[in-house]
Each structure stands twice: as C-alpha cells, then as structure tokens.
C-alpha cells in the first residue's frame, strides 16, 4: 500500500495517475470497494478523509474497517487530505473527526511501503 497526503487542491490525484500511469477507471472516490473490477490490479482510493468522516457520521468504526480492507486489497494507493493543520474546531464532531483522522493516517503511514506528500502538484517522498 502507498499513502499520498497533502492539503486541499494540491493535485494529489493527478499526481498519482501520472506517476503510476493509471486511468481514472481504477479510482474509487470516497468509498472502499468490496471487490474490484476484473483485470484491475492496483486501485486508487481518492478522498479517503471523506470516507472516514462518513463512517464516523454513520456510527461506523473506520479504524477497523480500513484494516480489514487492506487485508483484502494490499495493492492500493490511498489519497487523503491533511486536515489537522488548523485552528481547533468549535464543533465537537469536527474535533473528533480531526483527531481520529490524524491517528488513522499515522497508522496507515506506518503500514505503507511508501508515503508521499503532495504540495503544488509536486510529490515529496517522506517515507
């Protein structure tokens, strides 16, 4: 698994598609698939943070669910926004989301074979 992070609107998806020569049809937007399309080896999960937020809102347990997903689909590229670089939100849910998202990204970064941060469309390999 590879992890790609960065701020909003930094060109993360375009960077991933170009670097790994992938087409849009391997991209899952804000969802984790149960099964892939036959013939697709590598899959890309875009907007992972949105999936995490939705799972928390739905009372799910994204920490456990993503681990189960990775056990089935190790060959994937996860793309997520970094959302922790701001003022502590007034809203309790937003605070919980930010904190859990941060911990999930730390866990994913530990598991990832490679971590890249994209700024201005440029990837910086940090692991």
């Amino acid at each position, binding site marked *: 698994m590879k*992890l790609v*992070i960065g*701020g*909003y609107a930094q060109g993360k998806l375009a960077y991933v598609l170009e670097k790994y020569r992938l087409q849009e049809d391997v991209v899952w937007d804000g969802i984790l698939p149960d099964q892939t399309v036959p013939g697709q080896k590598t899959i890309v999960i875009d907007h992972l943070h949105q999936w995490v937020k939705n799972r928390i809102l739905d009372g799910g347990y994204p920490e456990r669910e993503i681990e189960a997903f990775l056990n089935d689909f190790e060959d994937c590229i996860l793309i997520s926004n*970094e*959302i*922790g*670089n*701001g*003022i*502590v939100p007034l809203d*309790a849910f937003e*605070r919980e989301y*930010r*904190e*859990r*998202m*941060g*911990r999930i*990204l*730390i866990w*994913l*970064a*530990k598991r990832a074979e490679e*971590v890249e*941060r994209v700024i201005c469309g440029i990837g910086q390999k*940090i*692991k």
Partner: protein
Amino acid sequence: MMILVIGGSGSGKSSYAEEVVCSIFEEDMKKYYVATMQIFDEEGRKKVERHRKLRSGKGFLTIEQPRSIGRSIEKMDAGRKTVLLECISNLTANEMFAGETPKLEMQVVQSVISGLEQLRKNTTNLVVVSNNVFEDGIIYDRTIMDYIHAMGEINQRLAAMADQVVEVVVGIPVVMKQ
C-alpha cells in the same frame, strides 16, 4: 541545544518529541515536562490523560505552567536538565485570552519569546512542541486571526532560535533545519 517540533493536530508530534527527549537525555540530567494546557472539561481531561499515559515510565517530572513560561525554571532543580515544553499553541492562547479583553498580539509574542529565551538559557536541552494552525483556509474573526498571526510570528522566531526544526507529518519526522 534547542529543538522545535511542529505538526498539526493528530500528527504524532507529541510522541515524536518524547522520543527525541529520551534520545538526547543523559544519566546526570533531570527530565522535565512543562505542561501548558488548562483543563476546562472532560475532553481536556481525556487529552491530558492520553499524554500522561504516553509519558508514563519515561521518568518525566511534570510542571504545570499555563502562562509566564519563564517562571517554570523556578520550579526546577539546579543542574543539567532536558525540558520538554508542550505546547506553544496553548501557551499563546493562555497568554492572549487570560484577561477580560485579549492582549495585543505583539505583547503576547514578546512574553512567549522572552519566556522561551529564559528557558533556553537555563536548560541543557530544550524540546519545544508547536502547532501548525495555519492551513485550514478559514477566515475567522479578528481575535482568532490575531492569535493565528501571533502563532506564526512566534513559530518563526522559535525556528530561528532552534538548532534543529522538525515537522512531524502523519507520524513521520521531516527535518527542516539541521
């Protein structure tokens, strides 16, 4: 030696800073943890508890110093010491919003920086944790913008004072100044 560790919320900056402290600590030193967070509710209590667990068994002596950070030295023994200060965003907020009306930005910057200079002078090793509060793209009211601005100024001055600056991203240290 002074090391500045910066990162966002949930970036893993605290546990990294603790690792750094333990790696530069020497047997003849005292190891202090200077806590700046004030507890107002259950959530704050839990946060402090989580950090306490992270530190437990590592031999830290804890000093609570929500404001006037230079005075924390008075609570330490003489001799060689390694100090972990966590964190600048709470300290800055406590300084700014202590009174009935917020203190002026430059006053806050001055008091935080002069306190840090004192700490630096009186410690063998100083590890300071600060936050990246700058990238959520939201325009807040004047008071919060002043706070963010003060934080930016303080971070820049601390980075200039520090021998090493490390940004922690998803738990990974990225060295910015060495």
